[in-house]
């Protein structure tokens, strides 16, 4: 005879309960020093106990086969290093201290937490320490935390949830523990890779610029650009960011050498170059007083022969003996035209382009367009990259688009300067893409400014030649992503360029 069940337990009316769960370490929070072994080395350094780092790893290895916690590890360590209780406790405190100093939030994941999220970890640290780490990462809600050394890796945790009729929607960084084992038991699991080094960060680390890699990673983890597609992230992390950093370092070197007092960054394309410059400037004592200003400009404005625009430029160029005009890409033709119109000797101004167009035919064409002769007659321009060896200008511009319209002229009012701009060049999905990357870049350079150190800066300067070479070689591996960018933004970009060309001086 079949059993009659109450309706709440009847299989046909049983509902699935879904829990949003998250791993903690390298999912919600990460270590600045990246690897736990670096924590142990730091403890060794602070405690002065030689051999601590190796012994600490061995002590954990000895207990790994069973459920274990922090105390279990240190019991083993006490034997390995012949420590007394006081020494062991002191070391435990130092290790916790180093962990707390190293914590950095993974903001993109932290922002996904809801009131009801459950945290599941295999970490050996005591619960109060884990809560403190989370609090330092801005996770202050009292989320329930489940701890088990091998619950996820052995599948027990997931099996338990499945047996209780609970399906987890889980986020974690370990492919086996957090994803494969979870899915095996019917959980929905997502692999989180944010804390992994990007290709650029990995290259820096491999080349010995370990502090620089850590700084960039820490800055990246603390910025959230919701809905930024993976292809866009890959291009920003591995193409645009190295491009902006290396160009900025080169520019800084010129600024120092030529004792430049004021740097004017061209509006729109130069926006993020300015951000990078300001983020790095504080690390070089020679450059701390250098003024980095946003300059309302465009090829159209520079070549328009507008009296008000020229007056604005004279105002921007005055007040400092040596000035630099900086733009992202170009030939230098419109900059030369402007200096000619202002009757300024080009020797007194540094013209800098992050990437110069090496197509002589095109440069000649633009020089002729502006009545300057040929490209041989243009003012000398300093540059870091050129289109002959690196990716084309349009793609670099697209990676740096900001949601601002092109400046046509500037009105100097009694209350200040008012740029006269076109509408923003993009709309719809293209505008969304531009907004996302702009938001990410702005946030990143803000974070980088607080994370950067003199040590990291020195490393970046030292590896810059390698980075430049790596960029040229590595861009080939991103050809698919660059093509997506070209298709996403390039079509309207080309239309805008064709439209703008009609407004340039004939």
């Amino acid at each position, binding site marked *: 005879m079949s059993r009659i069940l109450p309706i709440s337990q009847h299989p046909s009316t049983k509902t699935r309960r879904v829990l949003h769960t998250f791993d903690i370490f390298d999912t919600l929070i990460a270590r600045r020093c990246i690897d736990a072994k670096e924590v142990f080395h730091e403890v060794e350094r602070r405690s002065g106990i030689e051999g601590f780092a190796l012994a600490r790893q061995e002590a954990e290895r000895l207990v790994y086969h069973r459920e274990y916690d922090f105390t279990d590890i240190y019991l083993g360590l006490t034997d390995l290093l012949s420590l007394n209780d006081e020494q062991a406790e002191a070391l435990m405190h130092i290790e916790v201290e180093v962990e707390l100093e190293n914590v950095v939030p993974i903001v993109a994941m932290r922002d996904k937490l809801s009131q009801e999220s459950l945290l599941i970890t295999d970490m050996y640290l005591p619960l109060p320490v884990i809560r403190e780490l989370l609090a330092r990462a801005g996770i202050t809600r009292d989320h329930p935390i489940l701890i088990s050394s091998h619950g996820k890796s052995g599948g027990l945790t997931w099996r338990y949830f499945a047996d209780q009729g609970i399906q987890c929607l889980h986020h974690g960084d370990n492919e086996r523990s957090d994803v494969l084992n979870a899915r095996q038991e019917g959980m929905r699991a997502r692999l989180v890779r944010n804390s992994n080094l990007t290709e650029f960060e990995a290259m820096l680390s491999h080349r010995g610029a370990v502090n620089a890699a850590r700084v960039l990673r820490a800055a990246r983890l603390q910025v959230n650009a919701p809905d930024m597609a993976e292809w866009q992230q890959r291009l920003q992390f591995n193409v645009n960011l190295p491009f902006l950093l290396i160009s900025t370092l080169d520019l800084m070197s010129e600024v120092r050498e030529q004792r430049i007092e004021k740097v004017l960054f061209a509006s729109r394309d130069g926006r993020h170059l300015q951000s990078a410059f300001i983020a790095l400037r504080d690390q070089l004592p020679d450059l701390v007083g250098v003024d980095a200003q946003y300059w309302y400009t465009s090829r159209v404005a520079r070549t328009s022969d507008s009296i008000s625009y020229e007056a604005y430029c004279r105002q921007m160029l005055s007040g400092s003996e040596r000035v630099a005009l900086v733009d992202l890409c170009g030939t230098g033709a419109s900059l030369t035209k402007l200096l000619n119109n202002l009757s300024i000797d080009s020797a007194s101004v540094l013209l800098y382009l992050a990437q110069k167009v*090496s197509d*002589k035919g095109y440069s000649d064409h633009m020089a002729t367009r502006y009545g300057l002769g040929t490209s041989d007659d243009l003012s000398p321009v300093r540059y870091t990259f050129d289109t*002959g060896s690196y990716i084309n200008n349009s793609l670099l511009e697209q990676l740096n688009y900001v949601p601002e319209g092109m400046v046509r002229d500037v009105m100097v009012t009694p209350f200040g300067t008012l740029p006269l701009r076109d509408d923003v060049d993009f709309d719809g999905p293209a505008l969304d893409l531009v907004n996302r990357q702009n938001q990410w870049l702005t946030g990143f350079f803000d974070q980088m400014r607080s994370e950067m150190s003199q040590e990291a800066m020195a490393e970046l300067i030292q590896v810059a030649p390698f980075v430049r070479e790596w960029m*040229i*070689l590595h861009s080939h591996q991103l050809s698919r992503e660059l093509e997506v960018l070209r298709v996403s933004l390039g079509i309207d970009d080309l239309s805008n360029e064709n439209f703008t060309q009609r407004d340039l001086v004939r």
Partner: protein
Amino acid sequence: MSVGPWALQDGQDFSELLERWLDGPTLEARLRVIFAMVGRKISSDDASVIWQKLLKHCNQSIDTDLSEQLIRQLIMLSPEYQIAANLYTSMMMARPRPPQVPRIVFMITSCFRYLDKARAVKADLEARGAHACIVVGEPSIRVSKEVDGIVRLPVPDSYEALTLKVLEGLTWARQTYGSISVAKVDDDMRFNGNFNPERLADAASSLQYAGQPWGGMCDRAWHLGKTSTPMPIYGRRLRGIFAYGPMYLMGPKAVDHLVRNWVMYPGEVEGSFYEDRAIGELLAEGGMPLKAYPIAMMGGVVDQTERFVPASTTKEIP
């Protein structure tokens, strides 16, 4: 040591097999050692996994030339994989750079037999302010090397290997100087007052692939009498115009494209013993068609004398 998912066969001596693998002498011979390790023939993808493990195992104890050769062969074994792209990047950045890197290198393709001519061309170029190098073939070496001012390449030193010589020479230039323009120059070229290396560097960077347009017709017997081994007539389809061989320019992107394809897919030029045509075809495929720039405008003067090998040293094809 396990060799990936396979275990060594019973009775096998790993050290002896490793020694045989390192000794080569060819990629194919090394592959056969790997097959012997696992007891059967496996795919090149699977073999590349074992190759990586073996390389990691012994990389610290072998010399850099052997290491580079093994890395290069690994790239050829699995060119479509991410590891190949990463290894290629490392390989291109591994060699130390000279203190001064020129914008353009004039690469004089020659052979041991005509080294004196090549040296004269090099001296002339250097007197005109150009940075020049001579490349010759020396098949016994593992990797390209500059010795006493001559760049020796691990390819045959014969006429029929000229395509390999140019591609291997570009690879050496890329490894030595980084991203750079290269002008390929024959060892019987002369130069006149039009020659200006800076202007040629600008042109190479701007145009990427420039030279005297050639190739409307194909003399499929051009090479007869010039090769050291008997060769059939040129049997490949004509694919378009290319730069006439005595002198042409390649910008950084062109050099990069050619080197990348050569290192990853050397078979693409099999049978392409007309070097100028081969280069033109590879670049056209890479979206870099020829831009016209006559040799005379570059400041070059071509010697039209054909060089034949002595009849006694060749045999007719039956």
